[in-house]
């Protein structure tokens, strides 16, 4: 058995700000082994996005424990969570992934720069990553000059350029057509298989589910079934 990258124990997330408290997650247990590609599935409001967010340190659970790469992240200060996201986690979102004023290459470099990587190394790693995703020709284009699928590839490049322990993707294919979605999923599969990137996707796109190694179904904040 490979080591566990994520371990969630009895994780709950309750939104108490509403008039009626909403239990987005209810005592969820969830483990993720290195090299896995898990798909979180369920209708909207089932808690799949919330689970993705708490794992990624974007949101804090109300109860329970989350260990990412051996670090307990519940209760971490905001700055430490920022560092966690910067160094250990890569994010790909549904849309609005890139900094609009920067070219693809600059977008990828930007995150390395936040990590304090030197200029030459930064440039080299970014170009290599764009190459490995088959999009070297996009390097100098800005997000506004790219298609949705191209933007998502650049987003993936930015997410993996730091060699994160975990790649989180929230509805990455929501704005893409079928052919583009397939290309994107091929990219992710390639990453997962050849580079051993651990991936969690939250989606209700059935196409995605065909690619993943394991599927976790959520409903009303609880894990219903787990299967592959």
């Amino acid at each position, binding site marked *: 058995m490979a080591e566990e990258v994520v371990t969630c124990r009895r994780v709950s997330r309750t939104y108490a700000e509403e008039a009626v408290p909403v239990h987005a997650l209810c005592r969820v247990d969830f483990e993720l082994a290195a090299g896995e590609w898990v798909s979180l599935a369920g209708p909207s409001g089932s808690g799949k996005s919330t689970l993705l*967010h708490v794992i*990624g340190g*974007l*949101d804090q659970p109300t109860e329970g424990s989350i260990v990412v790469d051996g670090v307990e992240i519940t209760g971490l200060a*905001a*700055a430490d969570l*920022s*560092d*966690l*996201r*910067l*160094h250990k*986690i*890569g*994010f790909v*979102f549904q849309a*609005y*992934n890139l*900094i*609009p*004023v*920067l070219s693809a290459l*600059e977008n990828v*470099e*930007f*995150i390395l*720069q*936040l990590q*304090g*990587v*030197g*200029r030459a190394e930064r440039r080299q790693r970014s170009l290599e990553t764009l190459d490995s995703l088959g999009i070297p020709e996009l390097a100098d284009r800005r997000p506004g000059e790219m298609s949705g699928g191209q933007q998502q590839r650049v987003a993936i490049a*930015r*997410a993996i350029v730091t060699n994160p322990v975990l790649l989180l993707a929230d509805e990455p294919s929501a704005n893409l057509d079928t052919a583009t979605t397939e290309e994107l999923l091929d990219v992710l599969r390639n990453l997962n298989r050849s580079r051993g990137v651990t991936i969690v996707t939250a989606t209700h796109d059935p196409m995605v589910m065909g690619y993943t190694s394991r599927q976790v179904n959520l409903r009303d904040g609880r894990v219903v079934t787990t299967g592959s």
Partner: protein
Amino acid sequence: MTDPRRDARAGDTGAMFVRVAWRNLWRRRLRTWMSASGMGFAIFLVSVSMSFQAGSYDAWIETATSLMAGHLQAQHPAYFDNPEVRYALTEGIALTRRFENEPGIVAVSPRTEAFALVSAGERSFGALIVGVDRERDMALSSLPDHLSAGEYLPGADSAFLGTALAANLGVDIGDEIVVLGATGEGGVAALMARVDGLFDTGRPELDRSVLQVGIASMQAGFDLGDAVHRLVIETRDARHASDLKAILQAAAPMDVRLLDWNELLPELEQAIQIDRASASMMYWLLLIVVAMSVINAFIMTVFERTREFGMLLAIGMRPNAIVGMLGIEAVCVWAIGVVIGIVLCVAVVLPLSAIGIDVSGIEGMEQLAAQLMMPDRLYPSLNVNVLTESPLWMLAGTLLGALIPALRVRRMQPVEALREEE
């Protein structure tokens, strides 16, 4: 990892932030131009107005001090509060020579003074009689420049008086007048003089009440010997007169009191202060209005880019770094505004500072100028202070205006920010 490399990286990251900030500005071209133009407008107005202030204060001081008072005066310690004939400086000539040799002093002119009755025929008026050393006084006083008839003290028994006083006395060039006053000991002081010149300064209180005669005849008539009442001193720079005063006072004999123009002409100093105060009220108002516009522009910016900030937070950028980036954006807008404002200001003021503005041409200004002792031509003056003060205040206002909305980023929850509608 060595420190220099880390520093280089920090500079590198800074450059990237500046690039991102600069490009972000041009996502909303109009807004950036509007904010920058607003700042430029304010900087332009304030700088131009300050250059005129600086120019006119210098001119006020020069015009006012050159008429009678001078930059500095040496007097008997009691004379300033009680201008009585007996409070005189003895050994006037020696003291004059002594001050003339001091560094920083351009000219020194000894004067005697007394209130006395001036008579011509049956008519008598009270006047201030001033005894002057013709050559020395001409070197520093502008009163001879206001000559309207005759000559300036051509002879030992000449008198030089205001046109209004001459009219009141019913005298003209060539007429004899008699001055009757009291000596320092209370005896009768008398001297005869011939009207050889008239002056017209446009200031009624001078034209109606001042009469100049040669210092030697006044010293003789008022039994003063070698004594004088004022040593009027012109320095190299009126603005540093009080510093020079302190130096001179320390070296001066016990019975000599030095006074600078702030003390001699308190109303001048205070006119400047009032003008400054009312102008700075205006400047503050402008600054606040512009800063509020900046706040508004950044509220809109932060609002529009909430999702983008959410994404930046999600990929691990710290909130303070985002606030810093917005700060850089603000500084960039400010820099554009400064360029606009300063370029305009220099373009307007530089030619004017050479040729000056004819104030007397403006309706009603002529009398005002005479009243306030202003010259006819105003030369606005550009200096580092004028060109930096309003930009610096504006920078403070801009940063404040940008940071107030930007600090919202620190309270942003990335998840909620990402969910925000575009």
